Structures are given as structure tokens and as C-alpha cells.
């Protein structure tokens, strides 16, 4: 008996196969760049001031082996003194702080006291993107020896690390009801819990670092829209307000840029500038530099806009006094934003050191606002090709 003749597939089945192949091709074509982005690392050259690199999980075992565990660069001075913690990439779509800490790690040397630097406190958000908003996946900074490529992240951790989202996020321990997305936002999950949702574990580990190491000052670097009232400022609770105010007055007079002080509200929970102060002896400061890229009424979200901050729609709004910062055809370039973070931080450290000499922190080698505006941030990045292999860390 001969085998029956094969019949051609029915039309609907062929369509389904074609569609399945197309869907798979689209998934691969769309997924591969995201996969590469998630696993891309920018080389950070541990400069002469870095004495060791540890993990955030060293302070809270709940993070051990997790994708979200972050590097902590430690810079110890020969002389004991005060201690400061600097955190960037809380919101990984606000990259000025990330560039500022790369410059500190590669150039600064501490003589007295200790600096702890976490380049990316929200690792998951830095490896996530906001595709719906047309975010670029990367941006490049030119240097004398080539271009350095950075991942452009987003505000919230990926659902891959924090899932599912709740209907509302109930803040711990205050039980304040926050947006469901805030469960993935490391500037809403302070002070955190050791075994809570993943972003609470991250902030809890940072709190433990501050408590165990007796950190005097904590800096959380951010960027904010020009149309948002809390921009171009230092947010500080009452306990930090005098140092913030002194620094604000000094940078205005000595370095020629504005960074006013905003009080940290007592009734809005989960923010670093609130909870760090309330749950430790550390004085917190959250630094906001304007970032036109994040404003809603702009042109396309391009790398150019991210780096130079020039946008014709914002310029038009500025003329109508709709912005909370002065804004002209020069935009708000990255060099200026990084410079503001750097100089404001150094000035707060200087003021604190003046008032509490036994806990003073002294460091050198960090460029200031005028240096960064004049030279550009790329001038201060070190060439990994010339570094010892053990001194390169991919962030």
C-alpha cells in the first residue's frame, strides 16, 4: 500500500506559520539590542585614590548573588577623618551624576577621611530602557583618546528584577500609599527592608552601609526637568540645611552658578533625602541638576538633546516664563550639569570639614565646575587601554 500523497497546507495554517516566523524575527531583532544593552559595561579605571572595590551585598546578605548587587568604590585617606557616601544612577536616565562619580573614581585622591562611591545604586534601572519614549540605548562622550560609550538607563528597575507590580506600593515602614511604579524606584523605597521587595533590599543595604561605616554625609545625584519646580537645587532636611545653604551661597559667589536649597518634606516618604536622615546619623543631600531631555514638551529624545540640552520648544517656553531655571540658546549642557554636581558636593564636604574638624574629609584631584565647563567631561576620563587590567571595572 503506497503512502498517501502529501497535500498542500491549508491557507490559514500557512498564514499562521508565516506570522509566527515574523513574530520570532521581530522578537529577536528587537530583543538582541536590549539583551546587549542589559549586559553592556562601561570601563571605570580605578584611579590612584581607590583602595578597594566591594559590593553592596557586603552590608546585606539579601542582595548576595542578585543581578541588582552594586559595586562600591572605597577611597581611603592616609589620615582618619569623616566619611561620605556618593550615589549615582538612582534614576539611570539622569546621567550627570554617573559621569561625575566616574571622574571622581578615576581622578580623586583622598588625604583625610574616606569616600564610598556607588556609581549605580539602581543596577536594574541602568540596564533597562524606556522604549516607548524613544530613549537612545547608548550615548558617547568624546575624549582625547577616543569615545567612551555609556548605557542610557531609565528611572525604574526592570520587571525582570522586581515583579509583579502591585496595584499600589505601600511604603515601608510608614504605610504611605505610593504609585505602583514606585516599588521599582529606588528613590521611593528608602529605608528599605532586608528581605522586602528587591529595591527595598537595595536601599536597605545602602542604609546598613551608612549605619555600619558611620557615614557623615550622603549624596544622591539626580537630574530634574526644567519645568519641574524642584530643579537646579540641593534638597536637604532640616538637619542638613545649614551645610546645604552654606554650599549654595558659596558656589553662587565663588563659582558663578545657582543651586538653591529646597527643604525635604517630612510627609512625603521613601525619598533618600528624607529617610537617610531619619533612619541614620548621616546628613543627606539630594542634588538636582536640570536635564532638558526629561522635559515632556521637547523635540525627539536624541543623544544630542541629552548631551547639549538645547531644545527650541523649551526655549519658547522659557520666553513665556514657564521654566524654573534660566534657559537660553546655549541649552543646559552635560558639562555644566556634571560640574554643578561636582562643585556642590566638594563645597558641602568643605563646609562640613570646617565645622567638624575631627570628622574632616580632604581630597584632591577632582575638577570643579569651571574646569569641567572649560575642558568638557571627557577630558577627565582615563584610557582603559593604558590601565592595569586589575584596575578596570565594568559598570
Amino acid at each position, binding site marked *: 500500500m503506497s503512502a498517501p500523497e502529501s497535500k498542500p497546507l491549508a491557507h490559514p495554517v500557512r498564514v499562521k506559520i508565516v506570522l509566527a516566523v515574523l513574530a520570532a524575527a521581530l522578537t529577536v531583532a528587537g530583543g538582541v539590542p536590549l539583551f546587549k544593552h542589559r549586559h553592556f559595561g562601561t570601563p571605570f579605571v580605578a584611579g590612584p585614590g581607590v583602595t578597594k572595590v566591594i559590593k553592596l551585598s557586603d552590608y546585606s546578605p539579601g542582595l548576595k548573588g542578585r543581578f541588582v548587587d552594586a559595586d562600591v568604590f572605597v577611597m581611603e585617606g592616609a589620615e582618619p577623618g569623616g566619611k561620605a557616601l556618593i550615589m549615582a544612577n538612582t534614576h539611570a536616565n539622569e546621567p550627570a551624576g554617573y559621569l561625575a562619580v566616574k571622574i571622581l573614581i578615576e581622578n580623586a585622591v583622598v588625604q583625610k577621611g574616606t569616600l564610598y562611591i556607588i556609581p549605580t545604586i539602581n543596577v536594574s534601572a541602568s540596564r533597562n530602557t524606556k522604549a516607548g519614549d524613544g530613549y537612545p540605548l547608548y550615548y558617547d562622550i568624546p575624549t582625547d583618546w577616543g569615545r567612551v560609550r555609556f548605557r542610557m538607563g531609565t528611572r525604574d528597575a526592570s520587571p525582570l528584577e522586581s515583579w509583579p507590580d502591585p496595584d499600589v506600593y505601600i511604603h515601608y515602614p510608614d504605610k504611605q500609599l505610593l504609585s505602583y511604579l514606585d516599588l521599582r524606584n529606588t528613590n521611593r523605597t528608602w529605608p528599605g527592608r532586608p528581605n522586602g521587595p528587591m529595591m527595598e533590599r537595595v536601599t536597605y543595604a545602602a542604609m546598613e552601609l551608612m549605619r555600619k561605616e558611620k557615614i557623615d554625609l550622603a549624596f544622591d545625584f539626580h537630574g530634574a526637568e526644567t519645568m519641574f519646580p524642584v530643579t537646579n537645587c540641593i534638597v536637604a532636611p532640616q538637619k542638613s540645611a545649614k551645610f546645604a545653604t552654606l554650599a549654595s551661597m558659596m558656589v553662587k559667589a565663588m563659582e558663578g552658578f*545657582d543651586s*538653591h536649597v529646597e527643604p525635604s518634606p517630612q510627609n512625603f516618604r521613601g525619598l533618600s533625602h528624607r529617610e537617610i536622615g531619619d533612619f541614620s546619623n548621616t546628613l543627606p543631600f539630594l542634588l538636582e541638576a536640570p536635564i532638558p531631555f526629561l522635559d515632556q514638551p521637547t523635540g525627539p529624545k536624541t543623544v544630542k538633546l541629552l548631551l547639549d540640552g538645547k531644545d527650541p520648544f523649551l526655549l519658547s517656553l522659557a520666553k513665556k516664563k514657564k521654566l524654573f531655571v534660566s534657559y537660553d540658546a546655549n541649552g543646559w549642557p552635560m558639562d555644566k550639569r556634571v560640574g554643578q554636581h561636582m562643585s556642590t558636593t566638594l563645597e558641602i564636604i568643605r563646609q562640613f570639614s570646617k565645622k567638624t574638624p575631627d570628622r574632616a574629609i580632604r581630597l584632591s584631584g577632582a575638577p570643579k565646575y569651571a574646569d569641567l565647563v572649560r575642558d568638557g567631561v571627557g577630558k577627565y576620563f582615563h584610557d582603559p587601554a593604558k590601565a592595569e587590567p586589575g584596575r578596570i571595572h565594568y559598570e
Partner: protein
Amino acid sequence: MKKALVILFAAASVVTLAAGQTAVPKAKLPVLTTSAGQSNDVNALNIVLEEADIKYDYCDVPTPEMVAAGVGLGNKQSAEGFHVESTTDLAKFPKGTPFKACLVAIGASLKGMGASGLTIDTEEARVKKLVDYCKKNKIFLVAVHVGGEAGRGPAGSDNERMIDAVAPLADFIVVTKDSNKDGRFSKIAEKGKIGFQQVDYALGLVDIVKKMFN
């Protein structure tokens, strides 16, 4: 750095009597510092007084009754959303000594007002009562604005309402240059024949308060 600071203070203290500016008047101690609008600028004002070595009493939201209680502010203690500080030299001015001057840092902050349980309307009403008390009791009222452009806004905005509540009734107005880019304070001073000074930076106020109180 020290040299730079000395130069800076010197430069900031060179106050040219440009159009509309008047000499710094003399005022007497003890002095109360406070805020109109609960921005951080009152901290800047307190730092200025400390740099000038002038002792003061401070409350962010004083009532007329507290001002009437004089130095020590009726022994009120700080609590959530309410801050009191008394550094006045009690050997010279014992508790209860009536205030002779009141320095008001103008600047509205939604976060600051929220922290003190205030809205712009309740804050405006509170400030008006305070100003009214100072005028009735001949307390030398100084309006201070060091918030620059960030502490200004369009007509009718929170910041402008705070300015309206204090500046036209002040005995003296002192502001930073960037707070007065549109000449608003100069015009208020001119219209009300109020003493007026403008400084480049907030640190320039150190010299002004020294002249005022010493």
C-alpha cells in the same frame, strides 16, 4: 582659598549707591528672624547673621503672641514643622526683652509650607498678621530676598504674594541683584519711600547687617 574669601567678602561688601539705593539704616537689637513663604532662604539669612556675629532668635512660623513674648519666644520648643532657635545673648537681652527688629526672608516653597502644615493662603494670612504686629509695635521690619530668579515668579504666584505681603510695609528692603532683575523691589522701595539696598550675592548681606546692627 582664605585669600579668595577675603576678596569675595570685600567685593560683596562694596555696595555702590546705584540709582534707587539708599544708605544702610541703623537698627537695634534684639532681632528676630523669620520666613515669609517657608523657603530655605531663612537659613541663608541666619547664616549671614552668624557670619556677622550677630545673635538672634529664630522661628519659621512665629505668631504675634510669640513675638510679643520677646527674647526666648515664650520658651516655645521646636516640633515637627515648627522650628525655634534662640541664640540671643541673654546677658544683654534677658528673656522677655521686646524685639527691636525683625528680618523676614521672603520666598515661597510648597515643600516648606507643606512641612509646616500651611497653604499659600494660610501662610499669607499669617505673614500679614506678623507684619501688622511689627508695624503697630514699631519693630524695625526688614524685607530680605536672596532667592534670585528661582524665588520669583509671574504676578500672582506664590513668591509674588509673599513679596506683596511684606516688602511694601517694610522699613528697609535688601535683595540680591538676581532677585531684582525686573526692578520689582526697586519700584516698591521707590513708591513707598523705603530704604533699599541691592547686593551681588547673599554673602554681601553680611556687611549690610553688620552696618545695621553695629
